[in-house]
Each structure stands twice: as structure tokens, then as C-alpha cells.
């Protein structure tokens, strides 16, 4: 006899309360990041120079800015998922753990947000 309620069995979330959500999101973002980061890396190294006008003209192209926003966005989310597990593994004590996880989340919103904001600012002109 199982003591699990029919509802619990249907939801399939287990004791961690979020089922396979974290694991799956990490894989989906990993797959998306293969082409995105390769594009970003190769595109950047293919530029004739890394001076202001060259980089700005490149990033202002609609294709570049769109893909760059996707890259920074997915990268931030993937990094958040990964380093959250690292903090959960190594930071002990409930208070410190919650505080670290919250700080981590704030930092990702700040740095990911700043990166995306900067790309949009270049794309739409200032």
C-alpha cells in the first residue's frame, strides 16, 4: 500500500517539490547554448578589430543584437541553474543557504539585466 495521495502521484513532484523541472531546464538551456555561444565567440573573433566603431556597428545589426540578447539571457539562466546547485551543495546552515541563494538570484538579475539592457541600448541607439 502506498501512502502517497493520488494527487501527489499525478503531480510527480517528489520531496524536492519541483520534480524534474530544474534538471530539464538545465538540459534545454545547455542545448540552446551550444549554437548561441559558438555564434557569439566566432562572430566576435571574426571582426576585423575590436575597436568601438567596429563592435558597435556589428552589435547594432538586428541579427547580432537579437542573438546577443538570447545568448546573454539563456547564459544567465543556465549559470543561475548551475551555480544554485553549487551553493546548495557547499553552503550549509539554513539561514546562510537561503541568504546566498537569494543574493545569487539578485546578482543574476542585475548582471543579466545589465547585459541585455546594454545590447538593446546599442541596438535602438541612445
Amino acid at each position: 500500500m502506498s501512502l502517497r495521495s493520488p494527487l501527489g502521484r499525478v503531480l510527480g513532484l517528489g520531496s524536492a517539490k519541483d520534480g524534474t523541472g530544474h534538471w530539464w531546464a538545465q538540459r534545454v538551456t545547455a542545448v540552446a547554448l551550444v549554437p548561441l555561444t559558438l555564434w557569439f565567440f566566432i562572430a566576435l573573433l571574426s571582426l576585423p578589430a575590436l575597436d568601438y566603431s567596429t563592435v558597435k556597428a556589428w552589435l547594432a545589426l538586428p541579427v547580432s543584437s537579437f542573438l546577443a540578447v538570447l545568448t546573454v539571457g539563456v547564459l544567465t539562466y543556465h549559470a543561475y541553474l548551475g551555480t544554485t546547485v553549487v551553493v546548495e551543495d557547499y553552503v550549509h546552515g539554513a539561514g546562510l543557504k537561503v541568504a546566498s541563494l537569494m543574493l545569487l538570484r539578485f546578482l543574476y538579475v542585475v548582471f543579466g539585466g545589465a547585459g541585455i539592457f546594454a545590447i538593446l541600448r546599442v541596438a535602438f541607439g541612445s
Partner: protein
Amino acid sequence: MPVRARPLSPHVLIYRWQLGNTLSILHRATGVALAFGLVALSYWLMSLAGGQDSYDDAMRVLTSPLSLLFLLGWTFSFWYHLLNGVRHLVWDAGYGFERTPRHVSGWIAVSGAVLLTAGAGFWVWHGATS
């Protein structure tokens, strides 16, 4: 209560060091390093949005000898995490668990990352000096 021999997690001090655990630790370490790289990427993009002066300032900071060392480290981390990440995705799909494919793919990830890092470094250095 009977004492049962329950499975334990590896004891770090007596655990025999091998390729698998080294590459696993390296995957996590490079992932954490790349997360810090996001801060540098964000800083660089913000400097670009700030105009010519702020971009030139940022490029001076980012091309200092110490920064170049970091950029080299991030480049290696990027290639290794990418190659080893694909290795993990193949495992997730249910393939490559046997000893030989596991070791071969592991060495491909490491040597591929070293070669691609050297290639990217040479490419940038060549572009900067020609």
C-alpha cells in the same frame, strides 16, 4: 536497530583519483568560472552602450596582462564546459557509458579544449600583431 552496510558517498581523502571524477570536478569548476565571466561580459557590454570613452576605458582594463590571463582561463573554461557538456548530454540520452567511450570522450573534451583555446589565443594574437 541492526547496523546495515549502507552505501556511502566517496570519502574524499581515500578516494582513488581517476579521470572520471577529475573531469567532473573540472566541469563544475569551469562552470563557476564562466558564471564569473558573465560579470566581465556584462561590464564590457555596458561600456559599449556607454559610448566611445567608456568602451576605450573598459578595453584598457580588459587587455591588461592580468585580464588577458583571465580571458585565457575563460576561453579554456568555455571550450571545456562546452565539449564536456555535450558529453553529458550524450550520457543523458543513454549512450557512451562503457569504459572505452567514457575515457575516449573524456580525453577528446580535454585535448579539444586545449587545442581550441590555443587556436583562439593564436588567432587573437595574430590579429593584434599583423
